[in-house]
Each structure stands twice: as structure tokens, then as C-alpha cells.
């Protein structure tokens, strides 16, 4: 025990003073009696023994001395020190990857892991702290270091195994950052040992303790499901599905792929241990919707027995070309799959909103546009009536100085050889910025706001050799992707569980309703386009609804490493299951003054009661 303020013991000088005062107070009055023998009998009967009698007589003094002792001890701030040699603070890494849903005779692996974690918590000595990290796709700190066992228990109990592959590597690195190399802290991993990507980490030196959860070894899973459009057919899709046997014995696996009520594929696969089989099939014609691949086996890991895919209608981009006819531009747009072009000589400000609803991109070629506030625009050899695109005449044969090759518009676009005869002298101001700098002008400048995407090409295509170069179709493709990126993603509609997913809306929306695979619906506020959905945690089909717009998202596990619930090289090079003793005893402290104060209050109460009784 330590005394933080030993000078407080000077207060013990009060005790002699108390005794003196008590002696003065206890001066007895002499009374002459004729019945002393009776009084002695009374005293014997009342007090039993002389010692007890004296004790009772001096009880107030004893209580007061005890009170002074307690107060003095409390003011001296005692702290209890106790050795904690056999214990360390614990960083608990609990595997919440999908493989923890594997079935064992005693329950799921995750349920066993939770029990193990709670046992570990119960064994945590007083004064020791624990932090909990959930090792899912992204490691998540559930609780930082705390002694509050109720809080830790609640946190551990509330955890659920995810449908996503785990990332034990990141979780361990995070846990090790907590320990900071301290010998007073240790990392305890509770999981099934199926942790890929740990090979390059030298974890043995960190003494990580691994509590392995056993059980469940039979699994056959769908590890790949993909759809892609057939290049030479507008509506057909190719389907690829891979099934792998992760068990140690051969399996007969009935496989069926359906699209709504239509059967796209039905096979019975004979899979040897470790064997995988990939099937490719064509999905014909106009069938669209959510496809489901399913294998009918009773194995220990059911999550990968189903996979989902979305066959969406091919996205079409409507482009309105306003102004002068341009051979290169029209040919290029017409040749681009999924792009439909209309040509008009001019657009008024009144007609602009209606045209924006019907077209995803408006190209003004040499024609001044009306004021532009929202929509996607490409202006060629013209500028909008906007102060941010100040024009000061023309520039002849401007030499290109630099361009921003990182911008989506200029990816893979080479301007080094492009020659321009005459260009507008544009000075982008404010939010507008130059992407291609030339002498005296910005040959390409852009303005990006949440509602407006505007690219200004400051020269006539026919006054340059730009249309003749490879950079031109690449640039136009970039423009189409820039103004409508969902066109590229529409066929996908499929992610791995736990991944974020961008949702694109053709029209601006403020709210979207999301229906999860269990059918529960929840509204989200849309903050941009695309809007990132980050809660695709469960395998199944998510449905997004915003007004009349509807999107499907298929969420799958599709991870061969995660489906391999009993890998041959299961136990990673981690430390032993038993805690290692510390080389030297360490001491933990606990303040004692609250107990002393409580005792003093109790003594004070007792003194008051004695005073009341004797008064």
C-alpha cells in the first residue's frame, strides 16, 4: 500500500488532544451511597465483564479516535497496490468473417468464439483492461481499452458474424498498434484460423495468442458468378459460374441457375476434394432481372450455397448535338454502343429543361448556349454566358504547354501532338479550371458542381487535327463516362458483401429507399450522385427505389479463400494459446480513500447514536 500524501499523518496529533478532552469530559462526580453492594451487583449484571464495561464506557472516545484515524488515512490518499504478474491488458481480435458462420456440433463457430471471448473476459483480473476489435472486411474497434466488464460483455455479445470475407491481416496490424510493443499488453485472436494473407507478417515475435475455434469441415461453395454482354449481340449475356468442393471427400452437387422463374442452367456436378468446376452459358435475349445460382447440398457453410447476379437492361445515353454539323463528331457518336444522337440547330433557354430530361449530354458545337445551371454539357468552340469562362479574343496556333492527365476527361488522352490553328482565348475563373493549358488560353476547361458538369473545348474541331488523332475518340469516350458513369457499371450491379457501392441516379433525388435481403426497408438521404451505399453487409439482393427509378444490387460472398472453411494451412504462425507470464511482477493500484471516507461516515453515525443513547 502506498500513501500519496503522508504529511496528512500530522493530523494524528489530534488523538492525544482527544484523549485529554475526553479525560476532562469524563471527570466523575463523587456520590456517597449506602447501597454500594447493590450497585456492584447491578454493574456486574449490566456489563458482564469489566473489560466490556470499560469498552462501553470508553466507546465514544474509541469511536472518535477511530474517526480521526480514518480521516487521517483518507487524507493521506492511500492506494492499494497489488501484483498483476500473471495478467496483461488484452486486445481481443474476434474473427467476424463469413467463415465464422460455419456450423459445428456445438453451434456456429462464431457462437463458440463469443463464449470463448466471454470466458476470457471473466478471467481478466481486476484492474486489467481489454479492447475489442472485430475482424471483418474492415477491422473495427468495438471498444477501446476499458475495465468496464459490463460494457465489454455487452459489446462482445452484440457482435455478429458478417457475410463478408475477413481481413485478419489489417485487424492484427491494428491490434498491434494498440499494444505498441508493450509487454504489459497482448493480442488474443479468437477465430477459426482461416486467415489468408498473413504470410508476410512476422507475427511470432509479437507473441500473439490464438484461441482457435474448431468444428465444421464440409463445404461446397459458389465462388464465382458473373454476367457480361455478348459483344456481337445487343441483348444476350454470357454467364460464368464456378463451384468448388472444399471438403476432404468427393461431393455430388446439383447446381441450378434461375432468373425469376426461368431456369438458365441446371447441372449435377461431381467434384473431387478441392476440385472446382467453371461453367459458361449464354443467357438469351430479353430476360432481365435477378439471377440466382444455387447448389443443393447440406454442408457446414450455407452462405456460399447461393449467389446472385443482376441482368440489367443495357444503358442508353441520349446525346443532343446542337449547332453546326460535324462529320467526325457525328460519326464517332453514332458508332459508340449505347449512344443515340439527335441534332438540332439551336436551343432556347425555355426549351433547355425539357431537353435535359430527355438527353444525358448536350453538345454545343460553335453555338452559344443559353445560361447553364444544371445538366451535362460539352461546349466546342464556344463559351457559356458565365463570368467563370472569360474570353478575350482568339489565339492563333497556341502551343500546348501541359494538361491534367489525371482528370477523368483526359485519361489516356495525349495532347502532345495536337495542332490547333485558332482557339478562343479563355481564362477560366473561380470554380472553372483549365485542364489543357496552352499559350494564351485554356484549350480545355471544366466546371463541376453537384448539378452541373460542363466541359469547354476552346477550339473548332475543324481548325485542328484533334479529330484525326487517337486522342479524339478516347476523349469522347471519357466525356461519355464522365457525364454518365453508370453506363459502365450498369451491367455489374453486383458486389462482394461489405463493399461500398455507388448508386447513380438519372435524375437528381434527395431520398432513396433501400430494401435489404430480409425485406426490411429504410430511407436514406442522398447526398450526391453517385450516392455511396456502404451497408451492403448481407448476402442477397438489395433494391433501391427513388421515385420511379429502381436499382438492384446483388451482394455475394464469392470468395474462395473464405469458403475454404478448413484450409490445409489453417493455423497461422501465431503464438500459443496460453498466456505467457511477465518477466517481472507489475503492480496495479486502486485508491482506498473512498472506503475510508465511507467508514468515517459510519463511525460518525455510530458516535451520534451513542451520544443519543447516553444523552
Amino acid at each position, binding site marked *: 500500500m502506498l500513501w500519496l500524501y503522508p504529511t496528512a499523518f500530522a493530523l494524528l496529533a489530534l488523538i492525544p488532544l482527544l484523549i485529554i478532552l475526553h479525560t476532562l469530559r*469524563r*471527570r*466523575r*462526580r*463523587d*456520590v*456517597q*451511597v*449506602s*447501597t*454500594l*453492594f*447493590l*450497585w*456492584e*451487583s*447491578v*454493574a456486574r*449484571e*449490566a456489563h458482564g465483564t469489566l473489560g466490556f464495561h470499560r469498552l*462501553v*464506557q470508553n466507546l465514544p472516545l474509541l469511536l472518535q479516535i477511530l474517526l480521526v484515524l480514518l480521516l487521517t488515512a483518507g487524507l493521506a490518499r492511500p492506494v492499494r497496490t497489488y501484483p498483476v504478474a500473471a495478467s496483461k491488458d488484452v486486445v481481443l481480435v474476434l474473427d467476424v468473417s463469413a467463415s465464422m458462420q460455419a456450423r459445428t456440433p456445438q453451434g456456429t463457430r462464431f457462437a463458440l468464439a463469443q463464449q470463448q471471448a466471454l470466458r476470457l473476459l471473466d478471467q481478466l483480473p481486476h484492474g486489467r483492461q481489454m479492447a475489442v476489435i472485430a475482424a471483418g472486411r474492415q477491422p473495427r474497434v468495438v471498444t477501446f481499452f476499458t475495465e468496464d466488464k459490463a460494457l465489454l460483455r455487452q459489446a462482445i455479445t452484440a457482435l455478429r458474424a458478417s457475410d463478408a470475407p475477413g481481413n485478419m491481416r489489417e485487424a492484427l496490424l491494428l491490434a498491434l498498434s494498440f499494444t505498441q510493443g508493450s509487454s504489459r499488453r497482448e493480442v488474443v485472436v479468437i477465430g477459426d484460423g482461416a486467415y489468408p494473407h498473413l504470410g508476410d507478417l512476422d507475427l511470432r515475435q509479437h507473441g500473439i495468442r490464438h484461441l482457435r475455434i474448431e468444428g465444421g469441415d464440409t463445404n461446397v461453395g459458389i465462388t464465382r458468378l458473373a454476367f457480361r454482354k455478348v459483344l456481337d449481340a445487343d441483348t444476350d449475356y454470357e454467364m460464368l459460374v464456378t463451384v468448388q468442393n472444399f471438403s476432404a471427400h468427393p461431393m455430388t452437387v446439383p447446381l441450378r441457375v434461375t432468373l425469376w422463374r426461368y431456369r438458365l442452367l441446371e447441372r449435377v456436378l461431381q467434384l473431387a476434394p478441392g476440385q472446382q468446376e467453371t461453367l459458361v452459358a449464354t443467357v438469351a435475349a430479353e430476360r432481365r432481372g435477378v439471377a440466382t445460382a444455387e447448389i443443393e447440398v447440406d454442408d457446414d457453410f450455407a452462405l456460399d450455397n447461393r449467389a446472385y447476379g443482376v441482368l440489367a437492361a443495357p444503358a442508353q445515353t441520349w446525346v443532343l448535338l446542337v449547332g453546326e454539323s460535324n462529320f467526325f463528331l457525328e460519326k464517332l457518336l453514332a458508332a459508340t454502343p449505347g449512344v443515340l444522337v439527335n441534332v438540332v440547330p439551336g436551343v432556347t433557354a425555355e426549351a433547355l429543361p425539357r431537353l435535359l430530361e430527355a438527353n444525358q449530354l448536350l453538345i454545343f458545337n460553335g453555338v452559344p448556349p443559353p445560361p447553364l445551371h444544371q445538366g451535362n454539357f460539352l461546349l466546342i468552340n464556344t463559351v457559356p454566358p458565365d463570368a467563370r469562362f472569360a474570353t478575350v479574343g482568339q489565339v492563333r496556333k497556341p502551343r500546348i504547354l501541359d494538361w491534367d492527365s489525371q482528370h477523368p476527361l483526359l485519361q489516356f488522352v495525349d495532347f502532345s501532338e495536337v495542332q490547333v490553328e485558332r482557339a478562343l482565348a479563355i481564362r477560366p475563373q473561380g470554380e472553372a479550371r483549365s485542364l489543357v493549358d496552352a499559350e494564351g488560353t485554356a484549350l480545355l476547361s471544366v466546371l463541376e458542381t453537384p448539378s452541373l458538369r460542363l466541359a469547354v473545348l476552346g477550339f473548332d474541331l475543324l481548325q485542328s487535327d484533334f479529330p484525326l488523332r487517337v486522342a479524339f475518340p478516347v476523349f469522347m469516350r471519357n466525356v461519355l463516362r464522365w457525364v454518365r458513369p453508370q453506363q459502365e457499371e450498369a451491367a455489374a450491379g453486383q458486389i462482394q458483401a461489405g463493399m461500398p457501392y455507388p448508386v447513380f441516379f438519372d435524375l437528381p433525388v434527395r431520398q432513396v429507399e433501400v430494401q435489404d435481403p430480409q425485406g426490411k426497408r429504410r430511407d436514406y438521404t442522398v447526398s450526391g450522385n453517385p450516392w455511396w451505399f456502404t451497408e451492403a453487409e448481407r448476402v442477397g439482393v438489395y433494391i433501391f427505389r427513388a421515385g420511379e427509378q429502381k436499382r438492384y444490387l446483388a451482394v455475394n460472398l464469392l470468395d474462395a479463400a473464405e469458403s475454404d472453411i478448413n484450409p490445409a494451412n489453417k493455423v497461422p504462425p501465431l503464438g500459443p494459446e496460453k498466456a505467457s507470464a511477465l518477466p517481472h511482477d507489475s503492480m496495479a493500484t486502486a485508491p482506498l480513500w473512498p472506503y475510508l471516507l465511507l467508514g468515517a461516515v459510519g463511525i460518525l453515525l455510530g458516535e451520534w447514536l451513542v451520544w443519543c*443513547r*447516553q444523552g
Partner: protein
Amino acid sequence: MASTLFDADFLRKLETLRLLARRAFRSRQPGEQRTPRRGLSLEFSDYRRYDPGDDFRYIDWNVYGRLDRLFVKVFTAEEDLTVHLLVDTSQSMRLGQPPKLDVARRVAAALGYIGLHALDRVGAVAFADELGTPLPPQRGKAQILALLRYFEALSCEGGTDLNRVLSTYARQSGRAGLAVVISDFFDAGGYKRGLEALVMARFDVLAIHLVDPAEIAPRFSGAVRLCDIEGTRQRKLTVNRRLLELYHQKLADYFAQLEAFCAQRHIEYLRTTTAVPFEDLVLRYLRRGFYLH
């Protein structure tokens, strides 16, 4: 001197009282007391069977003629009564308001006065742990002054040893009679052997137990040092309500034991306190007893 103990009015009241004894006592001269002791006397009392050795002169021959059996006449002898006034003068009698000794000697003087007026022999002796100088039994009203002087001169000294002094008195006294023991009976050594000695010596014993109200209900509390008034022993106590209740219980038990003992030994017992006025004590309490009529 006598006037400090009794006023004239009180003395006149006492003259109307008569002492009676339940037993007959031997007496050298006939007195005003009738004793049931059978013997030579002036007044026929009863018959009894003849026993060998009886005086032939008292055989009733008329009865023998009718019944053919021998009976002798029995006469009641009127004998004078000797009153022994034993007054406790130990230190404990000093306590009280008024002091117990004052009450005791007034009561003793009153009884002696009454006895002398009834032509009884009255003697007195003070005692503490030893017998004091006795006033021998005397007859006649002329002895009243000496009796009062004797009581006037008493003072409290020494401890109490009832067993010893009463036994000694019973042994040394040549004439039995009525022994009036006036004491507080607070003797750690006990009182039984002394009172028994008086009874065995054929005394008629009247025990007047004189207690001060402060001894029945002590007026002190808290931290006190109790000092034995007759010795050097002391006891430190913190007197509280519980201890006072226990004391009352002990005192009641003590009184009950004394009273029961007296009843067993045919000792008349009378307990009074100094709070009772002296006149009331004599005129009321003694009238309720057996000795006044």
C-alpha cells in the same frame, strides 16, 4: 433538649397509645400486659390435664368428682413488658433529608416514651459495627428524660454489622421482650443471623426498615464515582436509564427478601422512608401495625 425532638402536642398524642405485645413475657413485677403464659396469676384462664409434678393445690377436685380425671387450673399472669430499642447509628444512617438517624431516634424515643407511660421497662442501645453503651431497661415516666437524652446524644459512626451486634445483644441481654430494631438494613454482610439470634432468645422483634427516598430513586446519572459511605470502597459507573432500572430491580428484590425473611421468622416488618413525616409514621403506620391500639 427534649423539645428539639418532640413538641408538647406530639407528646400528648403519644400518651394515648398503648403498646401491646402478642406474647407474654416474664416479668418480676406485674404490669399492664396480659400474657398467655399459664401460671400463677390472679385471673383464671383455662384447664389442662394434670401432669406429674404439677402443684396439687391447683387440681380442681370438683371436675375430678364429675369426670374421674385430674385437671389443674391455669391462671393468666399479668406481666410488665421490656422494650429494647436498638437504633442503627452507622454512617449510612447519616444519609437522607432529614437524615435517617434523626427519624430513627425520634421513632425510638416515641416508642420508649409510650412504653414508659404504660409502665413498661424501656431500654435502648445504639449500634453500628459494635454495640454502643446501652441504656438499661428502666420503668417509670421519670426515665423519659434520660431516654431522650440518650437518643439526643447519638451520632453516626462506623460501619454496619447487623449479624454481630444483634447476636451479641441477644446473648448479653438478660431479659427478653420486645426488640425494636430501627435500621436501614443495608449491610453487605447480611442481617439474617442477627435477627435470628433475637428470635432464638425469645425476643419479639419489630424491624423498622428506614430508607431514604434518594436510595429508592437515585437522583444522579452519568459518569459518577460511587463511594461507600461506611468504608473506602468505590465504584466508577456511568449511570444510565438501563442501570437505574436494574438498580430498582435489585433494590426491590432486596426488600422482598428481607420482608420474606421476617415473615418466616414471625418478625414484624415495617418499611418506611424519611419522606414520611415523623408524626404520621408514629400515629398512622404504627396504628396500622400490631403494637398500638
